[in-house]
């Protein structure tokens, strides 16, 4: 993080495609190495049901990580993604279970709640000039509290909403390609990844996301309303957290109001493993996706090998450091 981008930023498009490419390759190679290692180590690892389980375990963290990637590229940070996810699932619970409204209304409400909360964080950061770390820390706590208040501190179950569990657990893929039971949650993760990747790479919002992270002052001086764009990015990230909220609620068939703390750190870990710089201005959704996959492959594989849980945590921590160190080495070489 200390390697502040001293050199004048090259063309945005060039940054987008070149900077991520190496890291993506490195992260991807690590992922493959892990997959091969675990496959050789245990016959129970490389099996359809386990691969599906890994993907399923990636879906929530992956979507959260994609949301936080956007914010990190702007040079900010979002600590509220975990509890925002929970808040959105509680909102879905209120709309669907307490009010008995139809499923689509619940989905829209959860995503809208996420977007609004993201917009609030964005406002704190852009308009009120509160440092992102503090603003989203505040949001994190407010949302944790609000989730408990709204839900009456009890889980809200979705037993009265038929089809709700299909959001995450059902499989549209299997109805099209029999024998390939990819859960919808995973499909949604990939759709979110592709859509966000498109926004980052091909739209003006994406270009400003990178520009804000590289040199916000320059962007502002060239007459761009940086505050508005920043708020839009936080709002988009919030909406993505709303999707994560639906995924986790659907998977658990319940909104668990106490859950969520700690999930932001895992999402951030996936982002940095994927090569996005915490200094901003650099990062890819593909990298984040691979980062999230590395984390869940690692956790799952170590479990399959019956590695003691204490050691699982140690290994995960070491991998994060190794991944970021590898990225630093690469940057030092190129500069």
């Amino acid at each position, binding site marked *: 993080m200390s390697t502040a981008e001293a050199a004048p930023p090259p063309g945005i498009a060039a940054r987008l495609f070149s900077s991520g490419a190496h890291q993506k390759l490195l992260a991807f190679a690590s992922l493959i190495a892990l997959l091969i290692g675990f496959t050789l180590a245990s016959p129970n690892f490389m099996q359809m*049901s386990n691969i599906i389980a890994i993907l*399923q375990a990636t879906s929530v963290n992956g979507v959260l990580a994609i949301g936080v990637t956007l914010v990190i590229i702007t040079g900010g940070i979002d600590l509220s993604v975990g509890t925002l996810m929970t808040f959105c699932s509680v909102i879905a619970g209120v709309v669907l279970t307490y009010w008995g409204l139809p499923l689509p209304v619940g989905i829209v409400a959860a995503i809208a709640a996420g977007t609004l909360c993201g917009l609030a964080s964005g406002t704190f950061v852009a308009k009120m000039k509160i440092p992102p770390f503090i603003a989203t820390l505040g949001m994190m706590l407010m949302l944790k509290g609000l989730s408990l208040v709204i839900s009456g501190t009890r889980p809200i179950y979705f037993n009265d909403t038929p089809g709700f569990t299909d959001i995450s657990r059902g499989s549209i893929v299997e109805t099209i390609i029999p024998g390939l039971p990819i859960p919808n949650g995973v499909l949604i993760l990939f759709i979110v990844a592709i859509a966000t990747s498109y926004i980052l790479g091909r739209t003006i919002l994406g270009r400003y996301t990178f520009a804000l992270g590289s040199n916000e002052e320059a962007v502002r001086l060239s007459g761009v309303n940086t505050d508005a764009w920043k708020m839009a990015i936080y709002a988009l990230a919030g909406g993505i957290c709303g999707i994560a909220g639906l995924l986790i609620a659907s998977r658990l068939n319940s909104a668990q109001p106490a*859950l969520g*703390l700690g999930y932001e750190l895992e999402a951030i870990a996936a982002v940095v493993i994927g090569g996005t710089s915490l200094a901003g201005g650099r990062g890819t959704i593909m990298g984040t996706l691979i980062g999230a996959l590395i984390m869940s492959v690692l956790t799952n594989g170590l*479990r399959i090998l019956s590695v003691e849980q204490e050691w699982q945590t140690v290994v995960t921590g070491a*991998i994060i450091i*190794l991944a970021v160190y*590898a990225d630093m080495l690469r940057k030092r070489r190129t500069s």
Partner: protein
Amino acid sequence: MFTRRTLIGALGAAVFIAASIPATAEDKVYIPLISKGFQHQFWQAVKAGADKAAAEFNVEVTFEGPDNETMVDRQIDMLSAALAKKPAALGFAALDSQAAIPILKEAQEAGIPVIAFDSGVDSDIPKTTAATDNVAAAALAADKMAELIGGAGKVAVIAHDQTSRTGIDRVDGFVNQMKEKHPGIEVVTVQYGAGDHLKSTEITKSILQANPALKGMFGANEGSAIGVVNGVTEMDRKEIVIIGYDSGTQQLQAIRDGVMAGAITQNPVGIGYETVKAAVAAAKGEEVPTEIDTGFYWFDKSNMDDPEIAAVLYD
């Protein structure tokens, strides 16, 4: 210099080193236990009981649980990883009794018997549940409290959480027993500190501040009870009668020192042992009882060194 290749190699090597640590005996009957946690001494005691049974019945047992008791989805990931290892039977302590049902159905379809432990599951999939009757145990705490404060006055409760079965059962058991059997006692407040020592300490202090006439406090799990002890000590309110739950070094010390009047202990070693024992029986296709009450005891300074009690306490 480092190259990308060496780094990738290092990553790969790390995996293989990790892989070589557990010499998984493929021929032994394998029984994973998915618990609600693993760091707390209580869970370590459950694990000790499970290991004891594993040695006795010559089976391989692993013990895993999420970092904290809110991580319902992490526990489900652990269940699916455990199922991928094709175990002979599965022990499971549910964080949320409904959320895990789909994956338990998978286990059922695969013919893997499930033994619930510590807390039940709202389903008929588990062959049996090895657990403490928490409502009855907390009611006993209420009776002891009533006895110690002379049947009248104000008391408060600090519990770990509002959503888990044990949290709900212990609070209900205590509060309802007071209402039904000890009408002279008023439970002024029930607060939740997530089982966190520090949080529970702060909550205790504010309760004491707000209720100068308070006579007793009940901490519904180890962390809550220690918080109560800390809070009462810091505020120097020695007249407060404290009743705890479970054991652990600090709580045992508090009882020896007379700061805490006594506590309810479950039998965590027994929970672990009975779970594995039932799992072994179920894996062989033997009948198991539908419920295994692993028991609970009241203990205080006078009886904590009795062999029967000392055997279920843990440091």
